[in-house]
């Protein structure tokens, strides 16, 4: 049966969240600016929640959370050749965290970090699979690691092909948008809109349920599944133009349908393992929806 992760979402006031931010200039940090300066700008931009995710370094968010009135998840970015935001954990599980040098066996420690993050009730996000080159994280690696909950669909480069690879293997993971903030020119290039109450347990539950989408500027107004019809409605909050390019993708990244209209629909033919939508306007602003999926084929890995 096809499942729509956005069912019941649109009554909620959406929250603006990003989970991949490098900040702080102390020893071991990788930021270019102080945490307070960075948080003040995200706050001003209307972000409800974020995570200071420094390379191989946990940042205690407690004092900043209170000061800035922004919900801060604990976390860090696992950083060898393979990167991963371990959201919602305070334990840095990285061998030799002082170096980012590639490991001879990249899978075992990466898997341990995923499992540790999940054990803490967290949300492991596989990062920028196509950086610095396409398939930087190979299909072999993607198939060897298990129980990650999400992948960056957009972080400068596009992660759609790696995401489709995992989904097509029957493993349900969600697509995340990250600006991977290091410098001012990374600020708010890509984020997540999460349908949750404004508290951390509710946001974490929404992330795990796929009740969010990744955006680089467009806003989702509706995504419904009515028997076999998927309908998508999008706006650009800053524009009066109302035509968008909708691309419906299925298993193996196959383009199922492309529409240039105000809204778009797709009729399930049966046999699609999943259908996910990427929408773009003429200025290159995008959004990536989570897949509407067939629960006979896809499930979250236990």
């Amino acid at each position, binding site marked *: 049966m096809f499942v729509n992760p956005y069912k019941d979402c649109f009554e909620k006031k959406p929250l603006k969240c990003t989970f991949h931010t490098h900040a702080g200039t102390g020893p071991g940090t990788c930021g270019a600016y102080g945490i307070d300066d960075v948080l003040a700008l995200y706050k001003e931009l209307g972000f409800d929640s974020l995570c200071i995710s420094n390379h191989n370094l946990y940042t205690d968010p407690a004092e900043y959370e209170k000061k800035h009135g922004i919900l801060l998840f604990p976390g860090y970015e696992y950083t060898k050749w393979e990167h991963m935001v371990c959201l919602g954990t305070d334990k840095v599980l990285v061998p030799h965290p002082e170096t980012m040098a590639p490991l001879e066996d990249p899978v075992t420690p990466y898997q341990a970090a995923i499992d540790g993050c999940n054990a803490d009730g967290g949300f492991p996000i596989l990062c920028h699979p196509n950086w610095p080159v396409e398939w930087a994280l190979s299909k072999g690696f993607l198939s060897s690691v298990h129980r990650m909950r999400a992948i960056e669909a957009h972080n400068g480069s596009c992660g759609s092909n790696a995401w489709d690879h995992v989904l097509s293997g029957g493993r349900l993971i969600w697509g995340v948008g990250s600006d991977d903030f290091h410098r001012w020119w990374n600020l708010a290039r890509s984020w997540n809109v999460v349908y949750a109450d404004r508290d951390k347990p509710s946001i974490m539950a929404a992330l795990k349920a796929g009740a969010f989408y990744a955006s680089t500027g467009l806003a989702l107004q509706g995504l419904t599944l009515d028997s076999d019809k998927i309908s998508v409605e999008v706006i650009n909050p800053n524009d009066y133009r109302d035509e968008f390019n909708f691309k419906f993708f299925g298993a193996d990244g196959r383009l199922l349908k492309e529409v240039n209209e105000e809204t778009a629909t797709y009729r399930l033919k049966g046999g699609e393992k999943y259908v996910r939508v990427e929408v773009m306007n003429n*200025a290159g602003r995008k959004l990536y929806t989570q897949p509407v999926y067939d629960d006979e084929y896809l499930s979250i890995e236990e």
Partner: protein
Amino acid sequence: MFINPYAGRLDIKPVKSNFHIHAGTGPGTCGAYEIEPVIEAYRDCGYGALCISNHNLLTDPAPYREKYGIALLQGYEYTTREHLLCLGSPAFTPIPQDVIFRPGRDGLEEGPFGPVHRKRNVENLQKAIDDCKSAGGYSIICHPDCHVWGVSRDVIDAVGGYDAIEILNGLNTSDTYDHILSKGLLKWCTGSDDFHRWWHLGVCWNMIYGEPTEAGILEAMRSGAMYVSKGLSLQRLELSDGRIHVKVMGGDGFEGDMEYKFIGKDGRVLKVTNDTEASYRIKGNEAYVRLDVTSPEGWKLITQPVYDDAFFTEK
């Protein structure tokens, strides 16, 4: 005869440039940060030419030129209901009191996205264009035909003598650009951050095939030897054997499939190719052919038109 403004230029290392920056916190300025940290951040982001273009305030960049070692054009943003960047000259055209830019104050009426100035002043806009030109400067119509501060089509149609329009400044206003070109007016297109706050930095810029000096930049901009980028880089744009050959790559040398859209008179889409490069055979009646290239992640590049010089009456 079709003319390629990039001919003989692509061997020059292009200069990354943005001419629409609001900075400085002194009296009359409209910036949120001081000029120096803003210039420094742009330099760190790889820019080689900038203009501090505050609303109705001319900034002398001389003190910063030596310190930062990049080309800084003198200029300002003429700001009434209509906005115009005046670059590369000391010209400054005063604004009549009744149309002066006063955000959040009187003289406003409701527009579709918030308050807009009630009064238009086409004559004074034309004067600003003319003053800039006669002082050796370069003028760009800002964020045309879009939301709150847009210069509307009828005003654009009523003025002449400007050099370019902003085609990417938050929105893509290519429909207005095609409208201008299709009337036989050869104007160039630029992209801008319209920098006010840190999150505007490095969104959209111009790559200019010219010497990295004020004079070199202006010369290249006059001949259209530049393109608009939001992340992509131009590798090739040639006109040979009646065909346009073009190749675009990702900002960090990433090669992949992109959507190449060839656009002609009245904004007609002449051809769309999804590949690592593209070409188009000129039929002869296009008036102009320009390219809008988009990567799957939404990075963009917009070229100047390859144009039929017999079609264009104002150059």
